[in-house]
């Protein structure tokens, strides 16, 4: 196990370096640079442009700059943004990344859970119009043109019934007299919700071990108590109204992404469940006379969870790609929007910083996925 982890770590470091090199030279190969954009005014003499270029280090050859960047990066320095000079890249990421991650994690956790349960049942009851209708609906939701889908959600929930705000992270009017900044409250919200989720998770696991006639009640209690505690905490907190402001802005993008990701999970689960049902161990389990529900949930679903688990893990790095679209539509100031704004003006440090963070997330989630496989399928072992 440790040897496996050590090898993987070495591979990850090499892959990350190659990834950084590929992206750096790709970004650098773009014609022009930010100095051109900052000195667009024809009254600025070319000498000033040269000076600016020299100050930003853009006059050095790309290879030299790349190795300097890598050297600084591994000392924990990601540089400063060209566009928002002298804001540090790490500060931009620190501000923007949690917003995107919360958006995606909440959407994905809900959609994966619901998608897994429905996909499982669909595969079990194969055939009939329910299967075709749900597959076609699922495929349309899965291949929907996301900007349009987002706009439809805005039209439905923000324009027609005016339930949620149409976009942005917060309503500035509520924050004029606020003593703290939005990120302070947002981080607090994230942490408190995370603690509540962990309590729910532990409660669910524990309630699975008690006698079956008390199980449903125990599950209900373990679900309601943490949520009530969470609500109570924010109700009594002085920032309750501000937290509600952020939450109301969060609902619409999360709902959109949940529906979008739900379809994908449902389709993957169905396919993977159908494949698993052909395995010999399912035949054995049935031959032993186990109840159908046990075969479905304990034998088939556990193995069928593998591709779904991969999907869940991989949705994390895909947060950037998806984030660019969703955040543009909902004007959500997350990392995708920051990336898009930086990429079009060739703000190299910001673009590199965001891509590198996403690259690290991808590599780590690959590793977590691989370790998770061994837990889900006892036949998989890494030696």
């Amino acid at each position, binding site marked *: 196990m440790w040897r496996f982890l050590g090898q993987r770590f070495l591979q990850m470091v090499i*892959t990350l370096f190659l990834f950084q090199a590929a992206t750096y030279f790709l*970004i650098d190969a*773009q014609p022009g640079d930010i100095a051109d954009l900052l000195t667009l005014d024809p009254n600025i003499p070319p000498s000033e442009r040269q000076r600016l270029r020299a100050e930003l280090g853009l006059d050095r050859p790309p290879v030299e700059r790349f190795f300097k960047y890598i050297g600084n990066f591994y000392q924990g320095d990601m540089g400063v943004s060209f566009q928002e000079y002298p804001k540090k890249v790490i500060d931009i990421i620190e501000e923007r990344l949690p917003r995107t991650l919360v958006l995606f994690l909440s959407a994905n956790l809900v959609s994966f859970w619901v998608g897994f349960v429905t996909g499982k049942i669909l595969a079990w009851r194969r055939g009939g119009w329910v299967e075709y209708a749900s597959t076609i609906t699922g495929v349309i939701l899965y291949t929907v043109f996301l900007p349009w889908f987002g706009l439809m959600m805005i039209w439905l929930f923000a324009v027609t019934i005016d339930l949620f705000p149409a976009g942005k992270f917060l309503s500035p009017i509520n924050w004029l007299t606020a003593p703290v900044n939005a990120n302070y409250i947002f981080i607090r919200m994230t942490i408190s919700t995370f603690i509540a989720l962990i309590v729910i998770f532990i409660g669910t696991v524990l309630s699975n071990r008690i006698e079956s006639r008390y199980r449903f009640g125990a599950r209900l209690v373990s679900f309601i108590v943490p949520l009530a505690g969470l609500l109570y905490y924010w109700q009594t907190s002085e920032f309750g109204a501000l937290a509600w402001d952020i939450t109301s802005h969060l609902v619409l993008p999360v709902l959109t992404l949940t529906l979008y990701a739900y379809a994908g999970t449902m389709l993957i689960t169905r396919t993977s469940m*159908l494949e698993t049902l052909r395995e010999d161990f399912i035949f054995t389990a049935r031959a032993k006379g186990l109840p159908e529900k046990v075969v479905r949930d304990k034998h088939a679903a556990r193995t069928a969870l593998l591709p779904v688990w991969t999907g869940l893990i991989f949705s994390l790095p895909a947060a950037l790609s998806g984030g660019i679209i969703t955040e543009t539509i909902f004007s959500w100031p997350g990392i995708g929007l920051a990336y898009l704004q930086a990429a079009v003006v060739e703000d190299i440090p910001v673009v590199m910083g965001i891509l590198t963070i996403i690259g690290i997330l991808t590599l780590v989630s690959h590793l977590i996925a691989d370790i998770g496989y061994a837990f889900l399928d006892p036949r998989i072992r890494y030696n």
Partner: protein
Amino acid sequence: MTATTPPDATITIPEVPLWRARLQMGLSSLRSSWAMFAENPIGIIGLAVIIFYGLFAAAHPVLMSTVWDRKVYDPVNGFDIEIAFHPSSPSLRHPLGTDVLGRDVLSQLMFSTRYEFALGMLAALATSIVATTIGAVSAYYGGVIDLLLMRLADLVYMMPLLPILIVLGALMDIGMIELAIVLGLLFGFGGTAIVVKSQALSVKVKPFIEAARIAGGSDFHIIFKHLVPNLLPISLLYMMFTVNTAIAYEAILSFFGLTTITMSWGLMINVTQVFGYLLRFDTWWLLFPASIAITTLCAAFYLVGRALDEVVNPRLRRR
């Protein structure tokens, strides 16, 4: 050709030329695959939608040369001077209205369809050629070649596609062909190669590969004559999934205005956005036709892909 009978033979074996025997075998396997495909209404629905869009695209040049006046209905340069205010709502003259620049929306929609098809097909072709070659070579040789190719595949697979395409959009002029090739290469080197390779590994250990090697076949011969044909079904399957992904990415890139494509479904929405009509739902014909077209065509290819999956993958079959 007629079957010839050797004079001294008692049992007559009809001597069919090799190409005809192969054709017959191919046809019969195609027929049984089609029967399996046709059993599934999902694939048929997808195929029907694709055929509908095919006819839709084919109708455009016909309409342009017969009914529609080029000055008014040209998808890129047309302008209807008889209407005072653009965008105008749907009418008999313009079934889906006109856009902000006074161009007919239906004509744009029909004109773009052929390019969406071309883009999807080209990307899919590039993906399947690259992925099949890499998968077969990687599985056949193993060792260092396998290690290098698969690490490369991991690296490409790891790249967040949309951010990379945004950077590429600034790096070069991305038209339909460039986009198709870039997407095809990225898919081909990435995820699809990994899938095809795992299939190739199971083909590689089959006895006929061993037989071909004993018969003195070169590596090149074995890979392309024996290994690759057995990878074509899975390759075809992933071609379908590439088509819908390629169309979706084109739409999103055009929506952000990062391509140099003169007319496409994504660009129609981009124009709507640039002129500030995106959130105005009273001018629905500027947003809905193109969005629905993107969604349904992608869904159709995906449905066909899923139905093919049930043909190619025996474990998904009903029986």
